[in-house]
């Protein structure tokens, strides 16, 4: 059973449907006991870093996720859920993240040339920077769907895939049992399903 953490941020319908599609059972929950019984965790999220980080703390989910990650349970953060796993987010100020992967979340405007639209919205291809079990069913050059204006920086040792949008942006990162995807696997067609399947089999 997969726990999809419910902390009042984002649309969980597609994520739940896509897991059902690959035959994985999932529960949307903010109950610590239910989460403890699940064998893996997904942290979703859309919106702004500060608001989401606050909701994660106030709901008590920040501590629960950190505890479960420390115990070795496979954890996957998606989009803003991925960004929250880093040390700090610099979106309208400086905000504390979960610190599960070292690095900081910075505006893509800092690194991409002028003329590129922000947010980075659409299908872009993955370049692998490290071998990862998350990618066992997909190949380099496969397309996934992105929607973001910030990216994970200062985290070279954890980056497992990048995508090119005027600059190489972190597309996925990993630190032991903790994984994060900047793109939306649940919206990335067959390629996304294969990534979720690989996570379910970790």
């Amino acid at each position: 059973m997969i726990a999809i953490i419910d902390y009042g941020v984002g649309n969980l319908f597609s994520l739940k449907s896509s897991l059902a599609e690959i035959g994985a059972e999932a529960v949307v929950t903010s109950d610590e006991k239910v989460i403890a019984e699940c064998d893996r965790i997904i942290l979703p999220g859309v919106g702004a870093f500060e608001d989401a980080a606050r909701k994660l703390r106030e709901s008590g989910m920040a501590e629960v996720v950190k505890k479960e990650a420390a115990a070795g349970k496979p954890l996957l953060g998606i989009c803003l859920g991925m960004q929250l796993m880093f040390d700090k987010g610099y979106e309208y100020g400086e905000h504390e993240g979960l610190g599960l992967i070292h690095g900081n979340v910075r505006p893509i405007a800092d690194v991409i040339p002028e003329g590129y639209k922000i947010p980075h919205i659409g299908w872009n291809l993955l370049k692998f920077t490290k071998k990862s079990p998350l990618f066992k069913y997909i190949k380099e050059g496969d397309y996934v769907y992105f929607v973001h204006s910030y990216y994970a920086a200062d985290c070279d040792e954890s980056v497992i895939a990048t995508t090119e949008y005027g600059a190489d942006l972190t597309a996925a990162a990993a630190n032991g049992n903790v994984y994060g995807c900047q793109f939306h696997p649940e919206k990335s067609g067959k390629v996304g399903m294969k990534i979720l399947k690989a996570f379910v089999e970790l």
Partner: protein
Amino acid sequence: MITKRIIPCLDVRDGRVVKGVNFENIGDVASPVDMAKKYTEAGADELVFYDITASAEGRKLFTEILTETASNVFIPLTVGGGISSIEDFDRVLKCGADKVSVNSGAIRNPGIITEAAKLYGDQCVVLSCDIKRVGGEFRVFSRGGRDDTGMEAIEWIRRCVGMGAGEVVVNSIDTDGVKTGFDIELLDLVCKAVSVPVIASGGAGSIEHFIELFRRIPTIDAGLAASIFHFDEVSISDLKDAMAAEGIPVRRI
């Protein structure tokens, strides 16, 4: 490199997909769920669902159709038609929509853009705009292309983007359904006016029309069409092959 998106649009009335010429003479086509699946298999990059009667008659979307579609296709899904309140946003997002497009609702109450952008993020709010040439200027039309609002289109789009619209669908009433190509003049003006993604709609009749669109306006992000895909006049996979052969970045599956 980010790819140019190809987006089939499904105009839904009473739970069926329909497509008219210049918004009139609407004919029945097929089940939206089946068509959504078919397009996804063929390589569509995104799907747009419009409830075409809602803005005129205040009819609500059939949320069952939406829910069933969103449970079966795993690419981005935009929903529009009759969206005029935050409750409408909430309703379609809960049924699996990723983005919500506002048209007449934003004309009646522009504040809904800001309100929705704050709640769900700019990326969730799509401005859809029906535009027609009237007396030498581009005018915004409301209620499914029926009423001339008197507003100048480029200024309206710029204003909505300033309020938080994260994407703009530009539908040219002059070219819609007549299959003579996209409205390059209008689309070029919009692309020069805003920095958010712009989706071209209205006029696609052949593969060449998409090639012309992406060649002549390199900053345009996506091309949207309905009838040519519905009636198998153009297959999405052939279209993408042709775009790739022309050096236009596309996602292949």
